[in-house]
């Protein structure tokens, strides 16, 4: 099923995705106990190695690990200290020498998690690699939608915003498509990657994407990545692509509004919609912990680690 590492959803089978989602449900029950701990991963060590700023993803992974009785260590590194792959390798080798069981990596370069996975015997979980993938975010989105809608198959999912810089969008496209949803992408032409249709997603106008959508996923406008004048202004973006109540009216009456966070309120989404009755943004955060518990358990709960060590 799940192999040594979780690097992305592009090549993950539907069966494996569903196994993770099925496991996340019971994991969430543990979060609501007064003693939030089960012994499944007792004695395992998780290192969270984050080369980019993150609060929720990192806290989410660390809580997930702790709820499963792992010991956790967080290593944060300023993005400036690791522009080169070489230093990641060195860090990886140093870390690996300390025998962690799982390394959770966030890195600004696409492919960083795959590189790390080749270098170390520990299980590697990709917590975001550049604009490539962020698989656990897509898994928690799938879990949230499946729970609310009862299915993924046949749903219309609109992903709106800065598709080009978004690993959330990329993993989401793979995940939702693999489970049988129709994915529509909308956003400024300058922020739409070339040949994105090859993934099977449909590039559409905002109105086409929202029309009768079952799920509206708004992406964070990654202001820190907008260096080269791809957008005239935040204000214009808000006017042209922000999700407000009128635009949400195009979607189905029971459509879910999602956002991976952190939100730029008033830019990609109005506060009224973000806090409105169709928003599941807070549930996404809770489900994120449950899904990460499922991933950690499925990846490291068995006895195969030593077989995969070099």
């Amino acid at each position: 099923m799940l192999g040594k590492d979780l690097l992305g959803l592009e090549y993950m089978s539907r069966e494996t995705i569903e196994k993770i989602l099925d496991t996340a449900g019971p994991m969430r029950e543990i979060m609501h106990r007064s003693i939030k701990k089960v012994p499944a991963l007792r004695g395992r060590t998780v290192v969270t190695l984050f080369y980019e700023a993150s609060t929720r993803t990192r806290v989410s992974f660390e809580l997930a690990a702790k709820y499963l009785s792992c010991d956790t260590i967080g290593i944060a590194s300023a993005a400036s200290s690791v522009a080169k792959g070489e230093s990641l390798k060195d860090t990886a080798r140093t870390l690996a020498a300390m025998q962690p069981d799982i390394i959770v990596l966030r890195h600004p370069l696409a492919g960083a998690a795959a590189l790390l996975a080749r270098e170390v015997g520990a299980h590697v979980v990709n917590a975001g690699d550049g604009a490539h993938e962020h698989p656990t975010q897509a898994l928690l989105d799938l879990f949230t939608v499946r729970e609310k809608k009862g299915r993924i198959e046949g749903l219309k999912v609109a992903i709106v915003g800065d598709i080009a810089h978004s690993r959330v969008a990329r993993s989401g496209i793979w995940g939702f498509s693999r489970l049988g949803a129709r994915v529509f992408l909308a956003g400024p032409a300058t922020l739409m990657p070339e040949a994105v249709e090859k993934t099977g997603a449909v590039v559409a106008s905002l109105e086409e994407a929202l029309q009768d959508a079952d799920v509206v996923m708004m992406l964070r406008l990654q202001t820190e990545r907008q260096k080269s004048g791809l957008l005239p202004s935040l204000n214009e973006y808000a006017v042209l692509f922000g999700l407000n109540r009128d635009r949400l009216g195009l979607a189905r009456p029971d459509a879910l509004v999602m956002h991976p966070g952190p939100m730029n309120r008033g830019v990609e989404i109005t506060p009224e919609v973000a806090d409105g009755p169709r928003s599941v943004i807070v549930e996404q955060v809770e489900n994120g912990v449950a899904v990460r518990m499922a991933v950690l358990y499925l990846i490291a709960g068995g006895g195969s680690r030593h077989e995969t060590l070099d």
Partner: protein
Amino acid sequence: METKWREKARLMDGEAIRRALERIAHEVVERNAGVEDVVLVGVRRRGVPLAERLAGRIRAIEGRGVPVGVLDITLYRDDLTMLDHQPQVHQTDIPFLVTGKKVVLVDDVIFTGRTVRAALDAVMDLGRPASVQLAVMLDRGHRELPVRPDYVGKSVPTSRREVVEVRLTETDGEDGVVILEKI
């Protein structure tokens, strides 16, 4: 190649299971001097329908029901690191507080006792019960841990290599306890 199994002996039929549950229901009521604070917790998978049936019998005897919860012990197993593929985790659903309660764990078979150990840890993580008792339909011996059941449908000496199955209508389409052997 898939191993094929043949039914070697039938230890209990549906009637025998029904009578055993009836007796266990009386024993639970007797030992606890009624059903005040008694709760049943079925261990997935076949402990769950057994707990529900037992609750039905207790209601018939005492005229009042007892709460029934569902316990999944997968994350408490002591053999997780020895398995190639992790077993599917299922929902634990105990819609009442166990603290101060007389918890009767219900399972289909007691064998090595390792499942019971896991179930005890799982229950203790949910609170501090006044007591924990154990009801099983079949005790097949070969304990590896110092645990014993309080209520037993039938005790049968078995070979370690034999496979013993408790089958229930709810999970298997029929009631019965059988010993299987390889063919």
